[in-house]
């Protein structure tokens, strides 16, 4: 069934069609309409779930962890300050191997107060062990939530997922979203059935004191699962394509095969990049765009494969790791170690600054006329 949905509503419907059992969430702009719609959906009985109206984001994730450990499929949503407040428990959920799905509306960190698009909040969770995905459009938000449950709950994976959508550009912008039908979604995503959980018939203690004799191996197992997850992601993405007609991978390649310049991007910028590619191609410039969906696990294989084809690469980051460079840039560069292809790091759109087709065209112009730089500030006013 097709609906006109904002990104937030797409996220709410994703949780609904995924038949989550427990939701615990706290409002924060611009995520609020996710929790508001979910409150209505639960109240109307459209979703049989318990929605715990917690008193902070920290308690939201704590309650999801408890509920998931007891065998319930859980969902939460937040943004910026809320995600940061959860940070201690973000580590917890991954280390406890609980496949929670969290919809994060990418918003700039304070101070000063900003409610607009910026990826710093989710990038700051990079090393916690969560899988994380950046969505280009609202259909992708909906589809990604469904797939994230299936992938995360896979016994070889057992990891939580951060599903990111840009503040306002997606969260509050209406697009056509197909939410399919119960029959197909239920066949794709069966009920959550973990092998190990809090069970009075088989009592176990979870999370106890772990000495250096064993802690290292638990971390090793998390990394093994991240590597295994890559194939699970590809397999589930293909299965999704077969059932619903949209196939997904760790990345999405647009016109890269014969490209001289390849842009690597994520989030809504990836959508604009496709339009910019079309426009530049009309002018005879062979540009392509590689959209990175999964930041973790990082698609090193896909990035290396793309790099083989082009003359230069420009990475567009809507975040910066101060004192170094854009986070996706540094990871792309590290993935391409040993190759001689020039790589440019563009910083754009921090704090919700619009990144239009013109801005992206200026990046390619820069690549045509300048040596590679780690940081090129697009549109900064001096």
């Amino acid at each position, binding site marked *: 069934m097709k609906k006109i949905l904002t990104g937030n509503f797409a996220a709410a419907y994703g949780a609904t069609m995924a038949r989550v059992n427990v939701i615990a969430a706290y409002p924060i702009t611009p995520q609020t309409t996710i929790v508001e719609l979910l409150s209505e959906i639960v109240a109307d009985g459209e979703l049989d779930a318990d929605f715990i109206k917690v008193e902070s984001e920290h308690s939201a994730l704590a309650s999801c962890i408890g509920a998931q450990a007891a065998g319930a499929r859980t969902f939460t949503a937040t943004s910026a300050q809320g995600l940061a407040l959860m940070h201690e428990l973000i580590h917890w959920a991954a280390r406890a191997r609980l496949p929670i799905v969290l919809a994060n509306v990418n918003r700039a960190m304070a101070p000063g107060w900003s409610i607009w698009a910026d990826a710093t909040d989710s990038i700051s969770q990079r090393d916690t062990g969560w899988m994380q995905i950046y969505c280009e459009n609202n259909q992708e938000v909906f589809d990604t939530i469904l797939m994230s449950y299936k992938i995360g709950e896979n016994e070889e994976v057992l990891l939580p997922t951060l599903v990111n959508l840009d503040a306002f550009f997606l969260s509050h912008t209406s697009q056509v979203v197909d939410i399919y039908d119960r029959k197909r979604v239920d066949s794709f995503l069966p009920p959550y059935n973990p092998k190990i959980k809090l069970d009075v018939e088989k009592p176990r203690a*979870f999370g106890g004191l772990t000495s250096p004799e064993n802690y290292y191996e638990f971390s090793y197992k998390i990394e093994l699962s991240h590597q295994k997850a890559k194939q699970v992601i590809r397999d589930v993405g293909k299965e999704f394509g077969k059932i619903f007609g949209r196939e997904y991978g760790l990345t999405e390649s647009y016109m890269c095969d014969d490209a001289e310049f390849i842009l690597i991007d994520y989030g809504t910028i990836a959508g604009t990049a496709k339009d910019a590619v079309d426009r530049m191609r009309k002018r005879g410039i062979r540009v392509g765009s590689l959209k990175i969906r999964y930041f973790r696990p990082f698609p090193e294989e896909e990035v290396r494969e793309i790099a083989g084809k082009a003359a230069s690469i420009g990475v567009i980051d809507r975040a910066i790791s101060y004192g170094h460079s854009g986070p996706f840039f540094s990871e792309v560069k590290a993935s391409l170690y040993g190759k001689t292809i020039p790589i440019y790091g563009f910083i754009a759109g921090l704090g919700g600054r619009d990144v239009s087709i013109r801005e992206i065209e200026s990046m390619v112009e820069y690549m045509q006329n300048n040596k590679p730089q780690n940081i090129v500030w697009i549109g900064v006013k001096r």
Partner: protein
Amino acid sequence: MSSNNNEKDIVKIKGADDMPSMPASIGSMRMNKTSTWRSIRPVILKEKCKSCMICWKYCPEPAIFPTSPPEIDYDYCKGCGICILECPFDAIVSEKEGK
């Protein structure tokens, strides 16, 4: 933990393949015989004991069997002395451990 472990209850982990994905317990703390914590041991004087079970009631381990008369579980008794003090009939005495 104790050097006096209950061998058969010890969980043997060689490496990652023996471990669950997350730190979830496999065995019971029964493997840890806390008898080595004692510097004194309680001894129940059967002739004075009235089987009131107050000692059993207040043991924090627990290391007293609810029999008549009660019996101290010397595998786990830490020698805290609560039972000695709480016995209303002075039927439990303290002896130096390792006598």
